[in-house]
């Protein structure tokens, strides 16, 4: 939503419109601060809006995110720039940050688009749909996903063949190919980094065959398959559309592994895998689900109970890290692992293997603070300089961190961390106001 008033100064800049960014923005907005959210993607909602049901309460992620998204979008104190990035942030003095934003062109006039999808229907180009993690295609002009906010079309110019059909059919005259990159200078009193995380790319681990074997999927691809707005009509194998009946989960893919440069635990994979296992058992009652784990990290409120429940539902948990995966002619996969309890190496056949990929830092942050560089920790997450008492404090006064930008965490923890960031931001602004008025 472009600001109606062409405002150029805000109390708080929130970088990232995921759940952590929104939660902190809302808290601050309700306390009367003017907030600008900058989101690099086409829609706010972050990763959470794409998830199916979430542990341990199994409530649907969209049911929690979308009301929050619309509350954010509607709040008079919040302005949102989507498809925009922070180019640089310079701290001039306390409570005075000069920021340059870059608004990328979508070639669609946001205020005019009604989200009717006429253009999408006519567009002749298909491209991998990043929001369905490449399981199906989208068009070159497209609405990101059905519950996107804003729910308007955008043109992927890299994949556009410039046929102009979209412009011809748009009933609202919303297509505008003359849009250019815009640089917007603004001033803010403080900054919240809520840039979230990246997922581990399993192609790094050659012996798991991701990319090579089509029936080896990531947990995010499985997550999409379990959502009502899923790419297929059921949980299916991408190789041949067959309904699987024996699914394996490979935990610690890219976590707790020095050889891929990520020695820390991703904190969420155990639980989301257990959750997906429960959902699969609901969706495919005949299916067997096996989880290959190192240690089940069911540490949060209600997590252990949730894990025990999945075991009683029939999920099989085997202690042992999967060493390698090989494909059979029929697309089934042979998983080789050591059954730790027996101390024996074993092979098991599954018809779908899910790699429970870990959480990595989002490296975008570093480049935003070119002048007074922000300190990162050993794993390239934003460093919490006073972790115990001021968990949102960073190496720059007036810059705070919320959610997974500071390390792996689950949704409840992200929301709490966002709460902490908002209150630390509020007291920072107020403290300096009191000081300057003295």
């Amino acid at each position: 939503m472009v600001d109606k008033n062409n405002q150029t100064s805000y109390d708080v800049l929130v970088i990232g419109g995921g759940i952590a960014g929104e939660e902190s923005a809302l808290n601050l907005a309700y306390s009367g601060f003017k907030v600008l959210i900058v989101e690099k993607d086409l829609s706010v909602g972050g990763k959470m809006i794409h998830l199916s049901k979430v542990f341990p309460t199994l409530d649907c992620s969209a049911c929690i995110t979308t009301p929050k998204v619309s509350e954010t979008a509607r709040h008079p104190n919040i302005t949102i720039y989507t498809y925009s990035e922070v180019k640089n942030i310079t701290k001039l003095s306390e409570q005075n940050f000069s920021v340059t934003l870059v608004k990328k062109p979508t070639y669609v006039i946001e205020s005019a688009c009604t989200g009717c999808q006429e253009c999408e229907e006519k567009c002749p180009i298909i491209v991998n749909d990043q929001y369905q993690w490449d399981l199906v295609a989208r068009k070159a002009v497209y609405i990101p996903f059905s519950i996107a906010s804003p729910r308007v079309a955008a043109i992927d110019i890299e994949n556009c063949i410039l046929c102009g059909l979209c412009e011809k059919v748009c009933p609202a005259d919303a297509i505008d190919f003359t849009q250019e990159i815009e640089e917007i200078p603004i001033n803010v009193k403080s900054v919240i980094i809520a840039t979230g995380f990246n997922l581990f790319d399993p192609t790094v681990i050659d012996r798991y065959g991701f990319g090579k074997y089509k029936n080896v999927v990531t947990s995010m691809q499985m997550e999409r398959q379990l959502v009502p707005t899923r790419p297929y009509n059921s949980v299916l194998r991408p190789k041949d559309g067959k309904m699987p009946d024996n699914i394996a989960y490979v935990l610690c893919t890219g976590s707790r592994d020095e050889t891929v440069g990520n020695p820390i635990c991703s904190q969420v994979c155990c639980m989301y895998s257990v959750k997906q296992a429960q959902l699969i058992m609901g969706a495919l009652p005949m299916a067997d689900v096996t989880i290959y784990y190192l240690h089940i990290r069911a540490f949060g409120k209600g997590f252990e109970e949730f894990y025990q429940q999945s075991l009683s539902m029939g999920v099989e948990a085997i202690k042992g890290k999967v060493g390698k995966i090989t494909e059979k002619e029929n697309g089934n996969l042979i998983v080789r692992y050591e059954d730790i309890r027996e101390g024996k190496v074993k092979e098991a056949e599954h018809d779908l293997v899910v790699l429970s990929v870990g959480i990595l830092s989002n490296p975008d942050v570093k480049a935003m603070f070119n002048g007074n560089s922000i300190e990162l920790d050993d794993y390239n997450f934003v460093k919490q300089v006073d972790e115990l008492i001021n968990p949102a404090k960073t190496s720059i006064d007036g810059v705070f961190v919320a959610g997974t930008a500071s390390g792996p965490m689950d949704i409840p923890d992200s929301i709490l961390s966002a709460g902490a960031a908002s209150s630390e931001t509020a007291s920072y602004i107020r403290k300096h106001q009191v000081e300057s008025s003295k």
Partner: protein
Amino acid sequence: MKAEKGKTINYMKEKRTVPEALKEKRKEDAKIKKAILKSLESGEKTIPQISEEINLPTEIVTYHIYSLRKFYEVETGEIDDMDEYFFFKLKKNK
């Protein structure tokens, strides 16, 4: 430079050229789409059946058929007797 409203595409055409690879991919995709839709004209089929008929790997058929489903051109029917593969059919009213 001002572009005429409703024909801003001309502005973009002057600025950008479309890579050949993209055009090639478009042709290829269109060919696959046509083949799949044609194959379905003779009745409901599963992914392995289509794959065999049009001589394309099942993973490509899976990708395209579900994309077509997303764009409301085909729809899913019943599952086969073995509870393994779904049938697909052309969508009548889009």
